[in-house]
C-alpha cells in the first residue's frame, strides 16, 4: 500500500519562510561576546624591588627617641636618678648615618650643666653613652673614653644609647633644659 503525503502550497510556502526565520533567529542567540564565561586564568605577577644606597659626604645624626628622665625618676623615687644606657628602656637613642664601613671618631662632653626654666637654678648631668653597629641595646658597648673610634656598619649606620645620672637632692622645683652634644667625624 502506498502512502503519499501532500502539503498544501500555501502551507509549504509558510513553512519555508518560518524555517528561514528560525535559521536567522538561531544565529542571533550565539554569544559573540564571551562575558558570561570569562574568568581570569593565566594571570601572573612578579614583584621587583628597586634599591639604592645614598652615601652622604657628611655624617648625619638622627635622634630616634629622647631620654625619659621623668619616667626614670618616677620609677626610682630617690634623689639620684640613674639611667643605664645599656639596660634601661628610658635611655635616649641616636643613630649616625654615613659612609658604609667607614671608621669614625666619636667624642662627647660627659658633664653638662642643665638650667632651670623658671628662674635661677641648675643641675649637673653626667652623661653615659653606649654604642653598637646594630640596633641592639643590650649588646651595646659603653663608650667610656671621651674620644672613641668605631666603625659604621655595612649600611653606614651606628647606634648610640644615651643615659647618665643627675642628683635632684638640692634641686629647686621646676623644668630644666639641657643639651647633649656628640661629635662624629671620619678618620
Amino acid at each position, binding site marked *: 500500500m502506498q502512502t503519499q503525503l501532500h502539503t498544501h502550497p500555501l502551507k509549504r510556502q509558510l513553512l519555508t519562510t518560518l524555517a528561514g526565520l528560525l535559521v536567522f533567529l538561531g544565529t542571533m542567540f550565539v554569544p559573540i561576546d564571551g562575558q558570561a564565561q570569562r574568568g581570569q*586564568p593565566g594571570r601572573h605577577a*612578579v614583584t*621587583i624591588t628597586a634599591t639604592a644606597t645614598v652615601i652622604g659626604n657628611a655624617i648625619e645624626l638622627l635622634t630616634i627617641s629622647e631620654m625619659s628622665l621623668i619616667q626614670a625618676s618616677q620609677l626610682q623615687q630617690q634623689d639620684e636618678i640613674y639611667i643605664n644606657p645599656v639596660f634601661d628602656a628610658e635611655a635616649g637613642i641616636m643613630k649616625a648615618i654615613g659612609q658604609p664601613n667607614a671608621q669614625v671618631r666619636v667624642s662627647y662632653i660627659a658633664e653638662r650643666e642643665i638650667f632651670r626654666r623658671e628662674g635661677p637654678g641648675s643641675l649637673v648631668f653626667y652623661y653615659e653613652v653606649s654604642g653598637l653597629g646594630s640596633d641592639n641595646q643590650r649588646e651595646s658597648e659603653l663608650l667610656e673614653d671621651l674620644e672613641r673610634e668605631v666603625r659604621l656598619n655595612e649600611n653606614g649606620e651606628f647606634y648610640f644609647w644615651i643615659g647618665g645620672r643627675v642628683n635632684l637632692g638640692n634641686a629647686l622645683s621646676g623644668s630644666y633644659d639641657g643639651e647633649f652634644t656628640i661629635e662624629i667625624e671620619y678618620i
Partner: protein
Amino acid sequence: MGSIAKYNCFAVVLLIFLSAVPFGSALGQSARINFGAYGNRPMEIMAVGHDELAFGQVTAGDPDVVIAQNDPRAVILEITAVEYMDISVTLTPPPGNQLLREGDPATGIGVQIKMAYFNQGNVDPEIAAAQATVVTGDMITFPVRRRVGGPPGPPPTPSHAGYTPPMAKAYVVIYGTLNLGGDGLKAGKYSGDILVEVSY
C-alpha cells in the same frame, strides 16, 4: 488580497519586526573573542638571575644613575606561555615614582622605570635584553612568538583534556633611571617595589 499574498506579507512583517528587536548583548558587539576564557592556559614567569633593580651606592651630588636595557643590572623576566597566544604585560612602578628612605618614608628619590620586550623565540636572555623593543607607556600586548612572515598557519588545536599546547619563551626587561636631583640628598637605603603583571 489573495491568501498567498497574505501569508507572504505576514512573513515579511514578522521578519522585519524580529530584526528590530535586540537580543541581549549579541547585537552591536565587535567580534573580539576572548580565547583566554576558554580553557586553562599555562604560563610561567621568572626573573633570570637577579630580581632586584639595584642602582647601587650613590653620593649626594652625583649625576643621575642610568641602567640601560642591556645593562647587567637590568632585570630580565622570562615568560613561558602558549606560543600562538597574545599576552598583555602591565608595569606598575613604585608609588609616586619614588624610592623611599628606610625608616623615613617622607624622604624619597625620583625614579623612572621602563620596560622592553622580546618575542622572537628562545634565545640567550642577555641577547633578548639587548634586542628588546622599548615599550612606550606602562602596558603592552604582543604575541608570545612573533610570526616571522608568510601566511597565517591553520587554526590552533582547541584546548581539551590531556592536551598540552605548544609553548614558547618571551622576555621582558625592566630598567630605568635614578634621579638624584643634586645636593641635599639624605644618606641611607632607599627602595621601592615594581609590579609586573602578565596575562593572556
